Every structure is written in structure tokens, then in C-alpha cells.
């Protein structure tokens, strides 16, 4: 049931990934599991990870320190944060800044490329026109007795607003003001609305200057505070607008904003993105109430609720339901600070919530608190009435009209997205409460989206057989060329020895399919001969497997299984038998394939060609001896503690265009790959075997890591690879040292680009300035075409490079590599090797649950 449990947690817009792969048989060929080029507004939230690997100690030449004695505003005496006071200061710093920028040597290596057609883009960032120029004082605040709810804490502290200065910021524990108290520890008294006396201890922590990352945190806090002025509500990490909610069937859709302020290439910018949250008004109590009629009440309740993730409004936290406890009720007592308290009393005193039904069971949830150690195995007890269900159920996902309605709202085209962003900006700059906060801190947002200069890499040429090359065109789609182009390589003697397994009553469908297949393949220079047909009486999984075993005896090159209907279990069984037990590529086709006649047959023919290990098309690659590697990890659907890492490497792409793949089991708890090197080594040995030398240049595309763990990634994976590569090249006494570029691929960034305020940028658009990060060698590339919604650019971060290529060349190479995913005759949003690695890892994780045979490693059996 792992799948279903996972399904509930899946973010809304992620629907284009995992669920499809479960239905693989139906999702035959291209349409569904090709490029993941839908708009995904949900994105990763980790934003900590700028990298500084060379440590703090590397050359920190003090440049531009000519400006003497920068005056900071007076410290302890300053009572009011006045903008005027810091006026001269700003001037001085500006001068300073100018000098620093100029002092860079003119011939310094840059990460900006020059090739391609310049293109003017808008991006979803706002400049900060002004920001606080004075120093911020940082305090830590403690309450005695302790207060759980942040809102109450803020309320208590607000009694002393006068002492704290007008524009103080308080997030529940940290206090930021412009005012320095005389003592380092200040103690205040306050009384809450309930009449409880509190002692507030305010401890001085330090000053925050504009030169440190904490300053950015404060800016984020200020923005967040001012957004609260728009009456937004925080759910999870982001702010949502319950007033603008949209009712859709049984759920509500809350529009919200995701903002973050951080240091970008040369300025501090505000990134703003529109997100949506699906809120279900249902509580667990409602679900329990609905199941009352059944005779097997308790089992039924468990079945309906276990594994669900719930949100408790009072503390805004999510929990997973591990168990229901029918022996307890809200009237049960527990030990609260040495005193036995009932849940009813507890919630009343602590959160001021009155529990209505005193006879409901309790929910048990394992504590997932990061506070680790002894707390890890604690059980949290929750009240069903207060637990709101989150996410979509599988039932909802199956409802096409519902999902379509949802997509209608979440998938916005560029014009609408810009409009929404501008509305947000306007509201922020006109709502009195928000303006006040921003003004207090002297922060001013630009009212226009930032303009970015991008470049469009010219359309690539696709190489087919007979030396014919066609341009991929502006939309990067070459589907139509298959009508008159032949595939680059096909087996010399064609597909001569192969078998088909078909239920007897589908014989007619099969004939139609084979006819189409034959016709389509012949047009592409691929000779598909008559298969050995194996008729089966019924469509039980066991019958299929038996027939497959029979067919396998005559060593076929491929076995095609004809399904009347899509069936995930049967699909998994066939794949498993074909890839894990034997080493025969299998192809599953359903009757649906016939509906679209020749076009689907074309795609199946291409796929079969790939599964045999041949190449439908290639791009022009101006580098010889290049190996590109893609790596991705997918979790095992059966065993939560397991995951599978897949590595796909291209061999030489100039004369013998083939790919090598390997899979290894790894732990699901590890973000970083523990057994990457053995896998790379296999790929290197294969390359050596085929080309009698090691690759000259290696590009490693790493998918599946968040930007938060970049530093660890560098320490753990990159250093290791570099070291071992060197050793390996020495071992074979190679004349050249290895040249490696290690690139982290991130699909889910919040960055968006717009063309002409209403269109998506064309495929091939590269942006490597302004919105990129200074501490990285990174660029954004829009490689895919989207028909609906806003395109989301893929971010590439060159974590390590000694590949001796210019940024232009790296960008172009990456774009070229996006043309080689053979399940899709267009560009994908990540380099093909990544897409393959993802496909392979998913196949193994959801269907095979075991490592496939090595004999298949040079074939695209996982397509």
C-alpha cells in the first residue's frame, strides 16, 4: 500500500510524475511519461544553500577599503529609526560599492556566456529600492511560564511596544529592533488576556550589519510581517489568502504567495511566486462519523484514516496518523507538568479551544520532531475533531473533471501569472498596514518585475540516417520528420527473432497493431519481421508469465505483451520476469494503442528500436571523448527504507551512440549517494572496453538533491569522485588527466521567465545573470516547450569543474543533451541522461524491486 500512502502526500502539481509511472502500461510511449514539462508551481522550499567551499580563508583581498570610517548610526541612544540619519551613510557605501565592482580585474573569467540571440525577459523578482541602512539589534526573548502559541507570545510582548520602539520584529523567539537597551538582559512583566502574569526576559544577542546573512533573514521577516497586513494566513511555511479562496467540489483552493529575499548576482532581490494550497474542510472526526454505520467499525475507521497527514490549526503543524486509540477519549488524562490534565482542559487553557465531542477516540502519531534524540520515539496524541485532512485522495485524483478544474486554477499562463504578481505587489504597496511596516524599516519594493537579458541558443540540428540533418525548429519538436526520415541506427538484420504474447480474443487488435507497426517501422528504415505468436486463453498474470517463459526458450530479442486492459500488477510481473530473471527486453502494449493508429505505432517502433540498443537520432556534438552521466534516486514503493539509485552514461556520441545504465540499491534515508563511485566505475570500464581509452571529458548531471545540501554534496560526493577519478586515470596510465564538470540539476525552482509580458520564452533560452547566485557557477536553461501554463526553467549549478570549457559551451552542451530522450521527439526539461536515470530508478523502485540483469545494461529496456 506504499503507493497510496505516498499518493496522499504528493504535492498537487507533482501529478505528472509518480502516478503515471504506476500506470505505465497505459501510458505507453511518449505522450504521458515524456518530458515533465508541465507547469509546477509547487517548488522546493529550501533556500539555504549558497556554497562557499573554498572556505572562509581563501583570498579575501580587501579591496575598496579606501572609504574610511563608515559611520554607523549612533548605537545605544538611537531611539527612532530615522531614514534621514542614515542618509550620508548610504552615499558613502554606494561609493564603496562602486569601487569594489571596478576593482575586479578586467580579464577575469566570467560565468556569463555571449553566444545566441539576445532576448529581453521579465522574471518574477522585484528589486529592493531601499533597505534598512542602520544596524539591527538582535535579542532573544524567553517567557516564564512558557507560552506555546506564537500569536500569544506576540500579544504578550506587544504590551511593551513603546519600550521596544515602533518597528520591532518578533517571530516568537527572536526580537529585532533598532534600539539597544542599556543592559544586556532586560526583564519585563506582562499580563495576558486570561490574567496570567508572565516574566519576559530579553537577552542581547548581537548586532546585525548589512554584511551578513542574518541581515537577509531580517529582511525576509520584515517582508513577511508586511504581508501579514494583507490578512494572509500562514499554512506550513507560506502565506495564503483565505479570502480569495476558490471552492472546487469538496475542497478549497487557497491562493498564496511564496516570497524569499536573498542575495542574487549583484543585488538583493525579492523572489515572489504564486502558489496554491488545497485545503480540505473535512476533519478526521468527520471521516470517523461517516463510517459509523459499518459493523466492523474499528477496522473501517483504521482503513480510512491510517497514514493520512493531518494539519492542526492551533499550532499549524502536520502529523501523520499512525494509529487510532479507541480506549482513550478527550476526557482521558495525561501528565502535564506534574499534574494530570484532561485533553479537554488542556486545549481550553493552552489554546482556548473547546472540544465538542468528548467521546471520540484519539489519534496516535509518531513524533517526527527534528529535535531528534530521546524525543524521536515519542507518541503524540491528537484529537480527531481538531485534525484537518490535507492533500488529495486517490479518489479525487481519479476524477478527471476535478483535476482539470484544479489545473485550471493552478496552471497559469504567463500573462495571468504576471497579473497576479503585480496585483500582489500593488496590494502590498497600498494596504496601510503593510506600507507601515515597510516604511518603518525603510524598505521599498520596486513596483515592476525585474528585467533580465537572456540569450536563445539556436535550434539544434537532429541527425538521422543517410546523413540527413533537420533543424529541430523553434519549438524544438521533430515528430513530423519521422514520416520521411530513417533512424540513425537499427539492427542490420532488423527485428528478426521476437515473440508476441496475446490473449486469443485480442487477435484482431494484434493484427492491426502489427500492420501499423510494420508500416511505421519500414518508413523509418527499421525492418520488423513477423513475430512468433503465442496465444493465451485468458489474461491472468500467471498465464502471461508462463507464456513468457515459453517464448524465452527460443532466445527472442524482444517480447511484446498485448494487454486488453492496463494492469499495474501484471505489468510489474512481466517486467520483473523479463529484466530481473531473464535478460529480455519486453514491450507492453494495450488495445488503446490502436486508437491512434500510425502515430502511436511510430512511437512504439522507435521505442522497440531503443530497447534493442539502437539509436533513433543524434545531435551534432563538437566534442569527442565526452561522457555524460546522469544520476537520480527513486524510493522503493514496497519498502520505505529502501531506494534505488540509477546511473545512465552516454558512451561516445559521435561514432557509436549508445548508453550504459546501472542500478544500485541504497538507503532511503540518505540524501547523498553512498555508492556512486562503484557505479561510475562500471560506466568508465564500459567506456574503456568499447573505446580502448577513458573518456577525455566527463559531465556529471546530478538530479534529486535539494539546494540545501549542496555543501554536503560537495564534501561527500564531488571530492570523492575527483579523487578516485584521478586514481583511475593514473591506474590505466592515461596521458591526460580527467576533466570533469559536476552539475547539479534542479527542476523545482521558483524562478520564472516571461517574454513580452505574456509568452513563455522559447526553448533554448539561457539566463546566467541578475537572478543567478553569486556564490555559484550557475545558469537557468529553458529547454522544453510547454503548451499550457508557465514554463519552469531548469537550474544548473556547476558545483565543480575542471573541464576547460567556456560557459557558452557548457550551456550549449547541456541544451544539446536535452534533445536525446528517445521517448519524446522533442526536448526535455533535463538532460536526457538525467531523464533516463529518473525513468530507470522509478521503474526499479515501483515495479522491479530488484536489480536488473547486467546483460541489458547497454539497452534502453526501461523506456
Amino acid at each position, binding site marked *: 500500500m506504499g503507493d497510496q500512502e505516498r499518493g496522499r502526500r504528493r504535492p498537487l502539481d507533482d501529478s505528472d510524475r509518480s502516478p503515471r509511472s504506476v500506470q505505465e502500461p497505459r501510458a505507453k510511449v511518449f505522450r504521458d511519461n515524456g518530458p515533465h514539462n508541465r507547469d509546477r508551481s509547487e517548488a522546493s522550499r529550501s533556500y539555504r544553500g549558497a556554497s562557499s567551499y*573554498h572556505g*572562509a580563508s*581563501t*583570498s*579575501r*583581498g580587501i579591496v575598496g*577599503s579606501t572609504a574610511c570610517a*563608515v559611520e*554607523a548610526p549612533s548605537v545605544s541612544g538611537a531611539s527612532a529609526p530615522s531614514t534621514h540619519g542614515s542618509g550620508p551613510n548610504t552615499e558613502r*557605501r554606494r561609493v564603496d*560599492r562602486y569601487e569594489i*565592482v571596478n576593482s*575586479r580585474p578586467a580579464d*577575469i573569467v*566570467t560565468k556569463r556566456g555571449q553566444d545566441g540571440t539576445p532576448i529581453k525577459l521579465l522574471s518574477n523578482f522585484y528589486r529592493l529600492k531601499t533597505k534598512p541602512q542602520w544596524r539591527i539589534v538582535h535579542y532573544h526573548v524567553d517567557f516564564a511560564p512558557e507560552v506555546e502559541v506564537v500569536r500569544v507570545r506576540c500579544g504578550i510582548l506587544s504590551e511593551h511596544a513603546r519600550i521596544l520602539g515602533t518597528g520591532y520584529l518578533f517571530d516568537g523567539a527572536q526580537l529585532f529592533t533598532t534600539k539597544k537597551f542599556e543592559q544586556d538582559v532586560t526583564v519585563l512583566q506582562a499580563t495576558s488576556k486570561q490574567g496570567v502574569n508572565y516574566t519576559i526576559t530579553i537577552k542581547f544577542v548581537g548586532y546585525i*550589519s*548589512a*554584511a551578513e546573512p542574518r*541581515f*537577509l533573514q531580517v529582511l525576509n521577516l520584515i517582508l513577511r510581517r508586511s504581508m501579514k497586513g494583507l490578512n494572509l494566513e500562514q499554512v506550513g511555511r507560506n502565506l495564503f489568502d483565505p479570502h480569495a479562496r476558490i471552492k472546487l467540489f469538496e475542497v478549497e483552493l487557497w491562493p498564496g504567495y511564496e516570497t524569499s529575499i536573498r*542575495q542574487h548576482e*549583484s543585488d538583493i532581490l525579492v523572489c515572489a511566486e504564486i502558489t496554491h494550497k488545497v485545503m480540505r474542510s473535512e476533519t478526521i472526526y468527520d471521516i470517523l462519523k461517516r463510517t459509523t454505520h459499518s459493523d466492523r467499525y474499528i477496522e473501517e475507521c483504521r482503513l480510512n484514516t491510517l497514514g493520512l497527514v493531518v494539519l492542526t490549526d492551533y499550532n499549524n503543524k502536520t502529523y501523520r496518523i499512525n494509529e487510532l486509540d479507541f480506549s482513550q477519549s478527550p476526557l482521558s488524562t495525561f501528565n502535564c507538568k506534574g499534574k494530570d490534565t484532561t485533553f479537554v482542559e488542556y486545549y481550553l487553557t493552552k489554546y482556548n479551544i473547546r472540544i465538542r465531542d468528548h467521546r471520540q477516540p484519539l489519534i496516535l502519531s509518531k513524533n517526527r520532531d527534528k529535535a*531528534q534524540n530521546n524525543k524521536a*520515539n515519542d507518541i503524540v496524541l491528537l484529537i480527531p475533531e481538531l485534525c484537518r485532512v490535507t492533500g488529495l485522495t486517490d479518489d479525487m485524483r481519479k476524477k478527471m473533471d476535478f483535476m482539470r478544474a484544479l489545473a485550471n486554477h493552478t496552471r497559469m499562463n504567463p500573462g495571468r501569472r504576471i497579473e497576479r504578481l503585480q496585483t500582489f505587489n500593488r496590494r502590498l504597496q497600498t494596504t496601510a498596514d503593510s506600507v507601515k511596516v515597510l516604511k518603518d524599516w525603510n524598505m521599498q519594493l520596486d513596483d515592476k518585475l525585474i528585467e533580465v537579458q537572456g540569450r536563445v541558443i539556436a535550434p539544434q540540428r537532429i541527425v538521422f540516417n543517410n546523413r540527413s540533418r533537420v533543424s529541430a525548429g523553434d519549438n524544438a519538436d521533430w515528430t513530423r520528420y519521422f514520416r520521411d526520415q530513417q533512424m540513425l541506427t537499427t*539492427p542490420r538484420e532488423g527485428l528478426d527473432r521476437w515473440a508476441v504474447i496475446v490473449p486469443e480474443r485480442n487477435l484482431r487488435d494484434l493484427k492491426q497493431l502489427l500492420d501499423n507497426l510494420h508500416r511505421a517501422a519500414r518508413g523509418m528504415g527499421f525492418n520488423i519481421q513477423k513475430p512468433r505468436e503465442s496465444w493465451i486463453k485468458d489474461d491472468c498474470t500467471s498465464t502471461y508469465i508462463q507464456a513468457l517463459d515459453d517464448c524465452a526458450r527460443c532466445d527472442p530479442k524482444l517480447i511484446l505483451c498485448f494487454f486488453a486492459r492496463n494492469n499495474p500488477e501484471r505489468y510489474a510481473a512481466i517486467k520483473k520476469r523479463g529484466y530481473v530473471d531473464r535478460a529480455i527486453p519486453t514491450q507492453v502494449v494495450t488495445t488503446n494503442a490502436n486508437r491512434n493508429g500510425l502515430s502511436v505505432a511510430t512511437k512504439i517502433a522507435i521505442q522497440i528500436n531503443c530497447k534493442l*540498443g539502437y*539509436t533513433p537520432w543524434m545531435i*551534432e556534438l*563538437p*566534442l*569527442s571523448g565526452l561522457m555524460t552521466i546522469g544520476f537520480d534516486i527513486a524510493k522503493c514503493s514496497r519498502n*520505505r*527504507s529502501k531506494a534505488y539509485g540509477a546511473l545512465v552514461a552516454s558512451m561516445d556520441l*559521435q*561514432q*557509436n*551512440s*549508445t548508453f550504459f545504465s546501472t542500478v544500485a*540499491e541504497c538507503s532511503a*534515508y540518505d*540524501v547523498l549517494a553512498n*555508492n556512486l563511485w562503484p557505479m561510475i566505475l*562500471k560506466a568508465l570500464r564500459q567506456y574503456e572496453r568499447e573505446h580502448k581509452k577513458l573518456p*577525455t571529458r566527463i559531465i556529471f548531471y546530478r538530479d534529486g538533491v535539494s539546494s540545501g*545540501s*549542496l555543501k*554536503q554534496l560537495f564534501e*561527500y560526493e564531488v571530492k570523492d569522485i575527483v579523487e578516485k577519478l584521478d586514481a583511475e586515470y593514473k591506474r590505466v596510465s592515461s596521458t591526460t588527466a580527467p576533466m570533469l564538470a559536476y552539475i547539479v540539476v534542479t527542476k523545482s525552482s521558483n524562478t520564472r521567465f516571461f517574454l513580452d509580458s505574456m509568452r513563455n520564452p522559447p526553448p533554448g533560452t539561457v539566463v546566467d545573470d541578475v537572478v543567478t547566485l*553569486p*556564490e*555559484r*557557477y550557475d545558469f537557468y536553461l529553458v529547454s522544453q516547450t510547454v503548451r499550457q501554463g508557465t514554463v519552469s526553467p531548469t537550474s544548473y549549478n*556547476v558545483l565543480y569543474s575542471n573541464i*576547460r*570549457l*567556456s560557459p557558452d559551451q557548457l550551456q550549449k552542451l547541456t541544451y544539446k543533451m536535452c534533445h536525446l530522450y528517445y521517448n519524446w521527439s522533442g526536448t526535455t526539461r533535463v538532460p536526457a541522461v538525467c531523464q533516463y536515470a529518473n525513468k530507470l530508478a522509478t521503474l526499479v523502485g515501483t515495479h522491479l524491486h530488484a*536489480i536488473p*540483469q*547486467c546483460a541489458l*545494461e547497454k539497452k534502453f529496456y526501461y523506456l
Partner: protein
Amino acid sequence: METDPNEMIYCPYNKAHKMLRKKLQQHILKCRELYKDEIELLVCPFNKAHLIPEPDFLAHTRSCIDRKIIAHYQHSAPAELTEDTRHEKIETEENWDDDDVPDYNPQLYVATANVVREPNGMFPSQRKAFIKAERKRLLGQDSDDEANEKTQSRGGPGKATCQTSQRSAPYKLPNRQR
């Protein structure tokens, strides 16, 4: 067999360090740095997370559960190579084979640019020193933060500079920022 995600395990460097399974990798990175002069552990060739003291190393390499990555590879037949996957060399207008362009190093750039840098993955003492150096770099030398910090009780100036850093202060868990 399903292992519990909340299972607690011990650091291979110091048995007093106990953590959740998923924190192990991060933790090893820190302890590896911390104990690099004191404890030497060998890295298992099959799984980087396996750190083994030398005496047990050979035994481990024989019994490692991840040995199958290589064993599977060695024992099963490799893919047959066919000649007909070869094709005529795809000629291109450009040739980058002999290009030799210096690689961009963002660290060199940010060291002098007017940008706020993040002290990621540093030990607390290093981080403090880093932030101080950053203030100096960006705000000029005579920023009076210095003077103020001297009056504070915590952490005198120049307690740990980056150069001497690695083990100058006893290791503490970094303060949680949020």
C-alpha cells in the same frame, strides 16, 4: 525487513554521538573533520557510509551487504557489444576538442564582490570569524561593531580566525537559527 526511520544509530567516530538514521551522513561529514587527526577509519569501497576501523576492514569488505553491487556485476554476463550500433562519424562545423578555457570559480568572484556571503557548513567559531571578516570587507575596517563586540561577554575578538580554525574551539552544535 523494514527498518524504522526513527531508528537511532551511533556515530562511527564517537559512540557517544547518537542520532537519527537520516542524519548520519551530515554527521559523518562533521566528525570526519573533527577527528581527522585522532581516529582513522577506512571507507568501505562499496558504501561510503561504512567507516570501519582498520583491524575489521578486511572482514567487512567480505561481508558488506553492498558488496552485491560489484558481485552482481562480476558474476553476470556483460552486455554483448554489437558492431551495427556504430555509425558514420557525425561531422560538426565546430570542434571544441582542443579548447582550453579556464573554468569559472565563483569563490574568487564573491571574495571581492559586494555581496552577502553565506557561511555554510562551517564550524561555529569559523562562522563567527567569517561574519566578522565579512563586515570588515563590506562595511570598511572601522565599523564600530568591533568596538562593541569587545565589550560583550561572549567570544572575545580574534578568538578564532579562519586560518587557524579547524579545531580551535570545542565542537558545539550550531545554534538553530529558526
